[in-house]
């Protein structure tokens, strides 16, 4: 006779084993007992989600996991969006973990590349966020989730704080499919400010020895912005935002898009674009957006996570941000990614390498940074069925054959890059390093961030290439070479073909857009320093110490 309750009974046995380590009343476990708790609950070969988000890190539980006895806890299959802390990789060196499926590994990008080459990690795949979340509900459902929140009561009711991020998704997949959920919190309280996760979904609450780590990933110091970045930002605003009337959008995290944010109240205002562009955002609370918000440009912002130092400002602007009954930000990575995918008309962001067809990747031979959400937002969703002016205009530009009555729109996917990156490394290449990496470690699928057929525009300091208007592969290659500046790829252009593309408006130079080079000056930035941002916020923005240089 079939046993329909085997997994449920196994979960109950794990819970019983874990309860031996409770610290008295309720679900609370002391930080010192965290290793014992994990050794009691985990089984060899378990699928484990150790919450490593874009920003919020379950670091106390990460330290505990890496301190487990590899004789008892081993061969785990880690399924987590971010590989951010050293402990996330330490567990692969000791044999505690063996397999990995993830999305993003920014700060650990170099080490993860070395460990992949060395065979210490068996890699499943590098996912986009939504894709990994989707697999939590299909074939990568965690047996145990180790998550992080600001505080909880003794029954496990959890307040995640403004960085809700992945937590609701991870708990949903784990708890409702016979998994065990362990939350670390900064503080045990009698009553939480708001219930982000109901207590019956949390099995154990670990009172962390120190507050969880949050990475200030979205703070760009206006003091470091260059005139080249300002010039690129001006071209994007005039040649794309204004041209298509982009109101619903997502920005990447680079300096180029931060420069756009700081030019809205100055250059954008001068062009008469207020209210016509950049009103609805899927975006983390970027400090560089404060001047635009304060100048009345922005109607609303939904966030993936929060940003260090922005809490008081957000609390004071509930008409702009999504906030709870307690007043603090409610973010949600899965929902915001979905908004970015289906409800934005444009994604604009940077990348490390672009090839001759427009494929892009942030993987280089020495760094595997992963994708995060860029491929979700930086792709044209074929499931979209609502029209908008920018979407229809892009659709018309891209359609060459077929019945116009059956035309569908196109999302704008814009790559905003300087032709050279750090240390004069060219952004434009004949062949992506990602292909070499895939060959070396035997990946079936090369880690391409955005495929060429999703990219609609490339903006560099040399100009804008509108790939929607290219009619064959040769035109596309010359359009890309034509904005690739003085890189090898750029200098390898066919000058006559590039001029012909320019005559058709496929390539547009700053002078074609009526942009005055003398305007590409730092005085055009609405804020020229972090301190200026604090002033714009009326003192509500509290930048982290490393950005306080006054």
């Amino acid at each position, binding site marked *: 006779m079939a046993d329909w309750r085997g997994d449920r009974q196994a979960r109950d046995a794990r819970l019983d084993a874990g309860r031996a380590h409770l610290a008295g009343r309720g679900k609370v476990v002391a930080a010192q007992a965290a290793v014992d708790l994990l050794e009691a609950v985990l089984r060899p070969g378990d699928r484990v989600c150790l919450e490593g988000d874009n920003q919020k890190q379950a670091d106390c539980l990460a330290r505990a996991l890496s301190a487990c006895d590899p004789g008892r806890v081993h061969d785990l299959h880690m399924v987590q969006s971010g590989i951010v802390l050293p402990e996330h990789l330490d567990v692969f060196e000791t044999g505690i973990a063996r397999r990995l499926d993830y999305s993003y590994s920014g700060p650990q990008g170099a080490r993860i590349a070395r460990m992949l080459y060395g065979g210490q990690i068996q890699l499943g795949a590098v996912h986009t966020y939504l894709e990994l979340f989707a697999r939590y509900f299909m074939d990568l459902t965690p047996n145990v989730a180790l998550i992080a929140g600001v505080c909880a009561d003794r029954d496990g009711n959890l307040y995640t704080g403004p960085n809700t991020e992945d937590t609701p998704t991870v708990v949903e997949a784990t708890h409702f499919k016979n998994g065990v959920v362990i939350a670390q919190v900064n503080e045990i309280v009698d009553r939480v400010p708001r219930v982000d996760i109901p207590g019956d979904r949390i099995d154990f609450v670990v009172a962390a020895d120190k507050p969880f780590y949050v990475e200030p990933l979205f703070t760009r110091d206006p003091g470091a912005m*260059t005139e*080249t970045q300002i*010039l690129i930002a001006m071209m994007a605003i005039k040649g794309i935002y204004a041209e298509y009337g982009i109101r619903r959008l997502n920005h990447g995290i680079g300096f180029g898009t931060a420069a756009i944010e700081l030019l809205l109240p100055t250059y954008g205002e001068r062009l008469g674009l207020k209210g016509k562009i950049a009103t609805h955002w899927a975006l983390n609370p970027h400090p560089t957006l404060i001047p635009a918000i304060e100048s009345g440009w922005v109607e609303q912002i939904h966030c993936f996570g929060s940003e260090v130092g922005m809490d008081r400002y957000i609390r004071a602007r509930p008409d702009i941000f999504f906030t709870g009954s307690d007043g603090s930000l409610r973010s949600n990575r899965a929902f915001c990614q979905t908004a970015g995918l289906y409800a934005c008309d444009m994604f604009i962001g940077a990348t490390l390498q672009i090839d001759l067809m427009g494929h892009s990747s942030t993987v280089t031979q020495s760094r595997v940074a992963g994708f995060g959400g860029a491929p979700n937002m930086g792709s044209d969703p074929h499931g979209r069925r609502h029209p908008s002016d920018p979407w229809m205009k892009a659709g018309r530009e891209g359609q060459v054959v077929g019945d116009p009555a059956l035309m569908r729109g196109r999302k704008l996917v814009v790559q905003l890059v300087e*032709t*050279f990156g750090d240390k004069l490394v060219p952004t434009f290449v004949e062949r992506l390093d990602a292909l070499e990496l895939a060959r070396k470690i035997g990946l079936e699928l090369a880690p391409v961030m955005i495929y060429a057929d999703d990219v609609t525009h490339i903006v560099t300091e040399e100009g804008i290439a509108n790939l929607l208007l290219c009619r064959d592969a040769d035109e596309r290659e010359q359009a890309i070479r034509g904005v690739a*500046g*003085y890189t090898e790829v750029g*200098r390898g252009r066919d000058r006559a073909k590039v001029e012909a593309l320019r005559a058709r408006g496929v390539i547009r130079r700053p002078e074609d857009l009526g942009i005055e080079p*003398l305007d590409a000056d730092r005085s055009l930035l609405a804020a020229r320093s972090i301190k200026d941002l604090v002033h714009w916020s009326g003192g509500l923005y509290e930048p982290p110490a490393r950005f306080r240089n006054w």
Partner: protein
Amino acid sequence: MESLTFRHTTKKPLPGAKPQAITGVVASGNLEVLLERVLPPDACEVAIETPITGYGPVWEAVVADFVARAEPGGIRISINDGGARPDTVSLRLLQGARLMEG
């Protein structure tokens, strides 16, 4: 240190009457550009002092593109480079030409 000089013939003189202009600073990743209206109206000369050697062909391409875009006839340009990227050089030259026209 490397010294490079490029001479071009232009179809027309740079508009304006301003005798000289200076823009930029000699700082890491930046450059200082001095423009002087001292040459015949169809001539342009660009003299570069750069601490980074081996980029002659890139300088040549940047200067040739600038001359084609701005037609800076009559202008002698002296560049004191601090290791600027080609895009910064290109932008600074265009800014210098605009200052001379103003």
